[in-house]
């Protein structure tokens, strides 16, 4: 359990904002912090890492006190052992991909960890390259790998995928989810992207002017209509075709293009590019096992 109760005055472009956080986060959960810029999302993460010192408050993580302003305790970032992926990746330009990972290694830690991460993150071919020559997605993978070297129990991601194209985003979302589950990491993500939040997080908090104004399951956050249908996705409208009085709507769901039959009442307010909730009763889909051939990359 992570217990946070902090107060900090922030200065943003819109003026002074008082950041008042009071929340608990369950171990192993995937919490997304959602909100406008200037709401205090990044400051929240920085306070957790110890890079930003709140005026008062306390932070307890898994029973250990990280911050207690009354007793004068404030653990340095070095001692908190948090995995943090910076918005600008913060890869060291004077080191290769592999050296960046080795730099993160603790004294006496097994060097095999690096090899393992290089494999999981598919960095093998990039290991001897300097960060400047990597693409956005490759930088992101390196930064993520580096944050995981010390096997942190808490992973903080500050808008990690905002600069990437759609295909790379999807791939990295998958990777983040896989890591979150495999390492049983408590993960905190700052994100603006509704489909991303729906896909990754188990819980969302809305931060407005430094306060948590809403907290709940992602689906309740982004769908005005909550429906009981369990076969639910968010997709993007690609095309709407009329056929007599029914409509065939082509949707992009994740990487897949699907087509759905819709009535006039459903398409009246839709246009290509709109994000939609696609729901069906879970009784209809049929399942068939795929024989997957290994495709070499």
């Amino acid at each position, binding site marked *: 359990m992570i217990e946070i109760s902090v107060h900090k005055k922030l200065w943003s472009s819109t003026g002074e904002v008082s950041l008042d956080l009071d929340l608990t986060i369950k171990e192993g959960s995937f919490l997304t912090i959602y909100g406008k810029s200037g709401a205090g999302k990044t400051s929240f993460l920085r306070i957790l*890492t110890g*890079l930003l010192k709140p005026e008062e408050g306390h932070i307890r993580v898994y029973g250990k006190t990280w911050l207690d302003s009354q007793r004068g305790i404030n653990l*340095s*970032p*070095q*001692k*908190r*052992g*948090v*995995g*943090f992926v*910076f*918005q*600008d990746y*913060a890869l*060291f*330009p*004077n080191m290769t991909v592999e050296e960046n990972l080795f*730099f*993160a290694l*603790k004294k006496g830690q097994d060097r095999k960890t690096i090899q393992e991460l290089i494999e999981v993150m598919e960095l093998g071919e990039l290991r001897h390259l300097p960060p*400047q*020559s990597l693409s956005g997605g490759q930088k992101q993978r390196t930064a993520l790998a*580096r944050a995981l*070297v*010390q096997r942190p129990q808490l992973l903080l991601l500050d808008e990690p995928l905002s600069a990437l194209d759609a295909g790379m985003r999807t791939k990295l979302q998958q990777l983040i989810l896989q890591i979150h589950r495999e390492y049983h990491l408590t993960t905190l993500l700052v994100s603006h992207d509704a489909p991303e939040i729906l896909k990754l997080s188990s819980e969302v908090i809305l931060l407005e002017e430094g306060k948590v104004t809403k907290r709940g399951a992602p689906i309740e956050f982004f769908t005005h209509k909550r429906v009981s249908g369990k076969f639910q996705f968010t997709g993007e409208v690609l095309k709407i075709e009329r056929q007599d009085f029914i409509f065939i709507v082509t949707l992009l769901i994740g990487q897949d293009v699907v087509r759905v039959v819709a009535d006039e009442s459903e398409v009246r307010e839709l246009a290509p590019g709109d994000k939609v909730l696609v729901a069906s009763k879970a009784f209809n889909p049929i399942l068939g096992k795929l024989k997957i051939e290994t495709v070499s990359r």
Partner: protein
Amino acid sequence: MIDWTPLLLTFKLAAVTTMALGVLGIPLAYWLAYTKNRMKPVVEALVSMPLVLPPTVLGFYLLVAFSPSNSFGQWLERWFNLRLIFSFEGLVFASILYSLPFMVQPIQSGFSGISSSLQEAAYVLGKSKLTTLFKVLLPNIKPSLLTGAVLSFAHTIGEFGVVLMIGGNIPGQTKVASIAIYDEVEALNYTSANTYSIILFVITFTILLAVYLLNGGYLKRSWK
């Protein structure tokens, strides 16, 4: 044939001063780049003073301060057996003060130019401030370090006023090239003065050119 001693002395002084400035300038620049202390502007102004002050002012005060006829000068001599006026050690000390801004300012702006997240990333990974300085910060400001070192070196070569005030004109000890040129001109020895001058001109030009070429290369590589 000219006397090579003043030239050799000049380069010895420049080399010793630059090394000493490296040791002093890096911590000072680090402090100036990252401190939130209210005294920072005062220290910054003091460091920059040699840029605007006539070198003779600095030389004059050092001369007064280190004179054996004064208590501080006596104390130095008694306890450290150190006489800072009319000696090579005194020249080094004066040159360090005189060239301080040329070492500190490029390094300070180098530190300020590094994204703060690099430093923070190292801290979050559990690295101490010292490890971060040597493994992350300094390797990423090599052009600034080079600029600082070369400017200090070149500036020390060009020193005249301070040296004249505090060093005097002792051959082999404090008579550096710039003083030697002045001497030769006084003695109407224009040929020797010209030879010293050309040598200084060519050497300093070569050093500066090399730095700009090298730093240009650095820039190109890091912008790619």
